[in-house]
């Protein structure tokens, strides 16, 4: 195992999934407060046709080519979801389900064609479905790192703007913050995070990396800042540990292991978390009930005293 971890390529891959986890943990917090957790799932699936089209057009698998394709296709998906749910009686979650599955279906159609026509070169396109971090080459890792760092940078530099945008958009507008451009920026960083995660985690499970860390972080803090930090920490740990485990077996997909690590951290937070964790909640519920009983007795004593 150690020899594997000392391998320089593995180290690079490990480092990049960790950074990915950190970025996803941060952006996940934004989605969490926008109450759009599953949007990331829909957009990840919607990215698939873009990946394949980019591959068919340029004939190579470098992330440098595939990422713009994925991003474009995810953005089109996002626009459709917005358009359908705002202009018809169809609810947003139905629109998400439709776009998710139709785009994915289109992706599979194209993937089948790519597999048939492109000869041996396409092998590995399938890994976009479950993610295979080990299949990344150095240039992919560098592309991924740069984009992830940009995303992290954007969240940090505009920390207070994000905060008021998420908690009180109307107030933010009153302060001269353009909601439209914040929305645009939000979709941009969300889509970037999703598409850089596709190679490592896969289209089906990348959503987990955006959903699970913020919910887990919520169990430890009430402060937005601490939540961001914790969420990115949980994301980073999940990415690094999950990748390490998946590197132990040959051909083991990375995505599922990252998700399992994140889910384990979630369960720990759910049970032991200091804010609203199950254990704390159970104890305080019992105290609360006792208090009410005591109150009730007091009221009775008081009214009786008054009646005398």
């Amino acid at each position: 195992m150690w020899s594997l971890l000392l391998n320089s390529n593995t180290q690079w891959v490990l480092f990049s999934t960790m950074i990915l986890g950190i970025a996803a943990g941060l952006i996940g917090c934004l989605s969490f407060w926008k109450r759009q957790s599953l949007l990331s799932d829909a957009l990840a699936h919607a990215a698939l046709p873009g990946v394949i089209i980019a591959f068919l057009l340029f004939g190579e698998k470098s992330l440098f080519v595939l990422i713009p394709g994925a991003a474009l296709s995810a953005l089109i998906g996002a626009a459709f979801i917005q358009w359908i749910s705002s202009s018809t009686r169809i609810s947003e979650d139905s629109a998400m389900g439709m776009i998710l599955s139709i785009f994915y279906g289109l992706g599979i159609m194209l993937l089948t064609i790519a597999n048939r026509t492109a000869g041996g070169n396409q092998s590995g396109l399938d890994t976009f479905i479950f993610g295979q971090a080990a299949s990344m080459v150095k240039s992919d890792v560098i592309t991924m790192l740069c984009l992830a760092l940009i995303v992290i940078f954007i969240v940090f530099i505009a920390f207070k703007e994000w905060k008021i945008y998420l908690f009180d958009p109307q107030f933010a507008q009153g302060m001269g913050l353009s909601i439209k451009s914040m929305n645009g920026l939000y979709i941009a960083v969300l889509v970037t995070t999703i598409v850089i995660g596709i190679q490592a985690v896969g289209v089906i499970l990348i959503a987990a990396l955006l959903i699970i860390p913020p919910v887990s972080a919520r169990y430890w803090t009430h402060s937005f800042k601490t939540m961001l930090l914790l969420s990115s920490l949980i994301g980073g740990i999940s990415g690094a540990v999950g990748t390490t485990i998946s590197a132990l077996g040959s051909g083991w997909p990375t995505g599922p292991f990252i998700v399992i690590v994140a889910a384990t951290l979630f369960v720990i937070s759910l049970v032991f978390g200091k804010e609203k964790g199950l254990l704390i909640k159970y104890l305080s519920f019992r105290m609360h009930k006792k208090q009410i009983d005591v109150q009730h007795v007091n009221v009775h004593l008081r009214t009786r005293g008054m009646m005398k």
Partner: protein
Amino acid sequence: MAETVLKVENLSASYRKNTVLYDVNFEVKAGSLTGIVGPNGAGKSTLIKTLLDLHPSLTGSVNFFGSSFKKVKKRIGYVPQRGSVDWDFPTNALDVVTMGLYGKIGWLKRPSRQHKEQAYEALKKMGMADYADRQISQLSGGQQQRVFLARALVQDADLYFMDEPLVGVDAQTELAIMTILKELKKSGKTVMVVHHDLQTVENYFDHVLLLNRTVIKHGTTEQVFTKENIAKTYGGNIRWIGEEKSHVVPSLEQ
């Protein structure tokens, strides 16, 4: 002395961490028309939902007709807030009213022609006969509320709970609804209504339950609906216009 239809003892309920209702005690007699009045966040809707087992209670007991809720469910009618359902649902007004009869129709049976007629009669009573076939999203707020009232009528319950039936309706609908409520009362039914508008309380209800997380006062309107009690219920948030309490306007509402 009229029969006690509802007896609530030591009821408390919480929403997330906060206790919304505590130490709620009151009794309602048959044939009364009670307005449940209190500021926003006083727990009016929660009270109704807790009574009807739609929201868990923390402590206390609720007694309907000297029995438990589950045993007398069929004698209780409920009109939820209009905003609680999706009016884009693919159905028409008559169909929504017929839903009030589902409890009586029973499992595995379809509504008969007789049931439809009964529903139509109820719509007619609410002045909505012309709209029976209308898709519900095409009805105005007032008309939707009348459909809900008609649905409650076909339930033919002995005790009704209505959550803000007069909010967002036109004056004509308000009048129609109040006429029906007074008719219900006359025929010996008991009605409890969550109500927002302090100015109309005296005209509409014979009993008032002032609520702010617990029962502040409960009794006949004359005795209970006094300036002093209202101020107690709403805290300091009342702007008094003139000396008449009929002009009381809650300043922080809306």
